[in-house]
């Protein structure tokens, strides 16, 4: 069986990637955000898994909005970095893990999750920014193969938070039944509170965000019980991306150990948050 060793929740704001690509680590606007990432990056550097599963959403870059899958999974051996309208980010393409992808696909479909399969997929900032948060200087390659798990959060009706949490639990079962002994890291991405368009553009709700950062560790069921409308009202129309953290959390043990959390406003128009959890029982740490 494969073992989930950690789970990382993180925002995927494009400007975080842009700031890193332009070397603004020490810029006064950005330094506080990046300082908040540092303890997580150090802990993760010593715990590179054999494979990572990255739960994210595309922003009309890899997939046209004419076709909107609720849940998708990549089964390719390579995912190119997308050109989002201004040339692609200068970061490595993503190496996949087709064997584990196919195992997860089959397990999830048999478990009643109606996955859309991507044999080809370009990945956008929703995917590459979390990789950069994890690994600021990847060099020629990201630390390990990564499997994309795509969630529709940008087009109504999004899946419910409860369904995302259930997908995470099914993902946990699927990983546990993989024949090989490998270690896995899971990334849940997006959020935190933000709204890009409309009269509420610029909306930020730190109270909700802090509640979320606490509850994702100790009481994910509470977050899974919130409706689509709850998320949009409390976290803004794009804050509903937070439901993707529940997929990550669902794949982990009931009890996890918090390694680090960070919260910063703003990254561009968005509240940026990070939460890193150790999935191994304390005795084994």
């Amino acid at each position, binding site marked *: 069986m494969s073992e989930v060793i950690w789970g990382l929740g993180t925002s995927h704001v494009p400007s975080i990637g842009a700031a890193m690509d332009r070397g603004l680590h020490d810029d006064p*606007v950005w330094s506080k955000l990046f300082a908040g990432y540092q303890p997580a990056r150090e802990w993760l550097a010593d715990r590179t898994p054999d494979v990572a599963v990255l739960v994210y959403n595309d*922003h*009309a*870059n890899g997939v*046209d*909005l004419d076709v909107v899958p609720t849940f998708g999974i990549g089964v390719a051996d390579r995912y190119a970095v*997308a*050109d*989002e*309208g*201004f*040339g692609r980010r200068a970061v490595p393409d993503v190496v996949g893990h087709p064997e584990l992808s196919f195992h997860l696909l089959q397990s999830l479909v048999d478990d009643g999750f109606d996955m859309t399969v991507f044999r080809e997929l370009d990945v956008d900032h929703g995917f590459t920014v979390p990789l950069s948060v994890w690994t600021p200087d990847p060099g020629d390659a990201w630390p390990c193969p990564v499997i994309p798990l795509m969630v529709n959060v*940008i*087009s109504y009706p999004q899946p419910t938070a409860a369904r995302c949490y259930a997908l995470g639990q099914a993902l946990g079962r699927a990983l546990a039944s993989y024949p090989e002994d490998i270690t896995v890291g899971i990334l849940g991405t997006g959020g935190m*509170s*933000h709204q*890009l*368009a*409309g*009269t*509420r*553009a*610029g*909306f*930020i*709700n*730190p109270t909700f965000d802090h509640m979320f950062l606490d509850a994702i560790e100790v009481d994910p069921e509470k977050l899974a019980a919130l409706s689509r409308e709850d998320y949009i009202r409390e976290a803004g129309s794009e804050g509903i991306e937070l439901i993707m953290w529940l997929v990550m959390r669902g794949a982990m043990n009931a009890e996890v150990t918090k390694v680090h959390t960070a919260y910063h*406003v*703003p990254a*561009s*128009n968005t*509240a940026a948050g990070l939460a890193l959890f150790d999935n191994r029982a304390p005795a084994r740490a």
Partner: protein
Amino acid sequence: MFMSLTRAQAREEFLADESAYCDRFGLAEDQTTAVLRRDWQAMLDLGGSIFYVYKLAMMDGLSMQYLGGVFTGMTEADFKAAMLAGGRTDV
């Protein structure tokens, strides 16, 4: 149509003749007008996704914070300042 702007060649074609490019994709007249006039609010009202609309803004060198200002009736500088001050917590 905005999806096509993820290809560099298409971006050149668009800039060369915006109106013809809109025609090619079968945009309605009010949609084309919104694009040509850069009426960002109208693009949203006519059904454009913010993620598509943003691709056009990026080509114009405009930021999401500029758009945020447009949607809320602020200047870009005021919108940026509001974000740096912790965002709009009261809406």
